[in-house]
């Protein structure tokens, strides 16, 4: 590995990676295009991968429990979840790592659904090959992930609401009634928006104001 590692990265490497890889079927969303058991088998031969399994729904309660149990039983210290987009479930799986006693930033996801099975639906072989590539990439990245510490910052307990129509008014009232200060900005001389112009409104047929 001809890489120049910085001090922190070297320290993280001393804790030898023990990686768990989980390939999610997402029901049939992934499994009908990608050969999940085959990919899991291939991934089990990658370096530092201790366990590699396919799983029906990684995000489900039993799915998460299985991964958490594996983490503890096999002393895993890195996890790859190959499922949907990290934009959807990264937070879910980070929380799962936390619950299993790992730093949440030792997780990497491979996007097998939005960026593989759903966009190559009729190309099973190519999609399976791509899925394995995405997992290989995730495994080689997860090896070098480092634990990170979240920081707590001060926060201003006030909300700026832009627009004083029915939506802006309702938001402002809900916030203010809950004890939060609101700055409500409206470009017209009165709040009320389009709603104020309406006569009776459906479905109740009563006045809008």
């Amino acid at each position, binding site marked *: 590995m001809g*890489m*120049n590692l*910085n001090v*922190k990265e070297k320290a993280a490497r001393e804790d030898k990676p023990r990686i768990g890889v989980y390939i999610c079927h997402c029901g049939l969303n992934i499994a009908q295009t990608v050969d999940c058991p085959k990919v899991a088998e291939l991934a089990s031969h990658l370096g530092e991968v201790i366990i590699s399994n396919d799983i029906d729904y990684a995000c489900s309660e039993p799915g998460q429990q299985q991964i958490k149990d594996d983490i503890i039983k096999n002393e895993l210290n890195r996890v790859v979840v190959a499922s949907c*987009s*990290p*934009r*959807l479930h990264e937070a879910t799986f980070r929380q799962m790592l936390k619950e299993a006693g790992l730093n949440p930033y030792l997780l990497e996801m491979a*996007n097998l659904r*939005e*960026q593989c099975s*759903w*966009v190559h639906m009729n*190309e099973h072989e190519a999609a399976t090959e*791509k899925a394995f590539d995405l997992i*290989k*990439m995730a495994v*080689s*990245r997860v090896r*070098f992930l*480092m634990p*990170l510490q979240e*920081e*707590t910052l*001060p*926060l*201003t*307990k006030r*909300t*700026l*609401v*832009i*627009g004083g*129509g029915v*939506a*802006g008014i*309702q*938001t*402002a*009232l809900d916030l*203010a009634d*809950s004890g*939060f*200060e*609101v700055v409500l*900005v*409206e*470009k017209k*001389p009165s*709040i*009320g928006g*389009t709603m*104020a*112009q*309406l*006569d009776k409104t*459906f*479905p109740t*047929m009563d006045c809008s*104001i």
Partner: protein
Amino acid sequence: MTDAGRHPLIKLFTMSEVLDVKGYVGNFEARILKKARYVDENECTACGECAGVCPVVRPDEFNSGLSSRKAIFVPFPQAVPSAYVININECLGHNPSVCARCIEACDKGCINFHMSDEEIVEKVGTIVVATGLEPYDPAELDEYGYTRFENVLTSLEFERLINAGGPTGGEVIRPTDRKRPESIGFVQCVGSRSVRKGGNYCSNICCMNTIKATLVLKEHYPDMEVKVFYIDIRAFGKGFEELYARSRRLGVHYIRGLPGTVEQDTKNSLHVAVENTAIGKLEIYHLDMLVLAIGIKPAGSAQQLKEMLGLQLTADGFFLEAHPKLQPVDAATRGIFYAGCAESPKDIKESVTQASAAAARAIRLMHKGEIISEPITSEVIAEKCKSCGICADVCPYNAITVDVKKKKPAVVNIAACAGCGTCAAECPFDAITMNHFTDTQIINQVNALLGEKPKEKNLAFACNWCSYAGADYAGVSRLQYPPNVRIIRTMCSGRVDEKFIWEGFKKGAPVILISGCHIGDCHYIDANKWTERRVKKVHKKMAKLGIRPERLQLEWISAAEGVRFAEVMSNIEKLRQNVSDEEIAETIEILEKEKL
């Protein structure tokens, strides 16, 4: 409305606009411009003496121009704040020799022509965007005759006409002869569901709004002939179908088909030609009045606000939510939420529901009084830093300070760092690490991807907020594209270091794509301008070295552009097929010789 006006915790700024917003979740700073009202809104009792003497008469916008108001006016009787306002562009001025009659009429002395626009700075932790809608202007749909015939009205104008507080006291009359029409027709989907003009989306409210109008008409005038021209009636909500059934029971005639032409006869009655698609016949109806059920367009301010807050819009121009099902009120930017028609056309109930949801989401974030920051920030390796100051120059957040004169190493203010990684990409000495997106982590991904059969694969870098989200959107839409691409996610395209590109080509990549948010839409203010410069620089180097610059592509793809993402994937695949084995081998040789 009045509750919002007098709530002790709500600070209301009317006639105001947000000029710019700085900061980040939990700690935003908004600059607000409050335009001069020329009437003291706290003192004014809305007695109306001033308007009584004002000589300037103008169309009343609130009544859609169906009545008039003065240059000093109250927008509508229930206005909040309940105070008059002067339209200074219409007013004759306060020079006593010209006018100034309102000043004399106001006993309380509320009118002040010396008021000027004010700029206010407010600190907030969260922002809710509730900028609403703009009604569709049907002038371009000339077949309905809106600009030609006075008795063709928009649904909003009709709303004012039938409103007890409107210009006619709720009496429906024809604009031409001020007589009650014996027959009224409603045309649905005006500016909606059309690929030709207006929006191609359903505006959501117009069917029910028309049904409501027919019920009110039938209640007021049981004998009036009421017809509705429609494509489909979408009465999908709770209690909606019942209203539709009631309307039909009351004798409202629903005709499936939109008018082809509208003409007017000498008595100002309208002749509406329509193909009734239920029976496949051309029919002509004679109606005294025609109401166009106009659709909903995004507010004009959406574009400006999008740039100011780093948000995204859908192709229709409405704000794009973080996830269409699971985070329907969150913006992708943490701490910003949507409510109402700003996000999509919706009725009052849905607007109120979303508004409450937005409030709850904001409270969820704020209630602890502190916020946990993602530790994805940059870090300086002091012993490698040469204090050149480049990192400080490129940081969009001014989060890095370097004492260039005293040669002190750079320092990152972690609270201000948003984690784009541009500094790490631009540092010539590798003295900055971008946590969670380090050189090692990314180069390992590149190597893993190109380890086997590299010439069959396209390497794409995609920024988290736009292009990666665009790729997800292509997936959600099930758009099919060639399976050769492998994406590496970075938070911002600004993170894509030159050395990642060289590494890719050295390992045999035929084509490399860098993709990010459109210029002006960058989630990290303007970090992507450094991406653009870097790619230009690399293109020049490639040309000089004899490597075809086309093999490095730069594309801006937004989170809403799933279709574009799929197109770009097809294009780079075409490009890949034109890269020969010899060309790749030659590139590897050149780069190894150059030690890049």
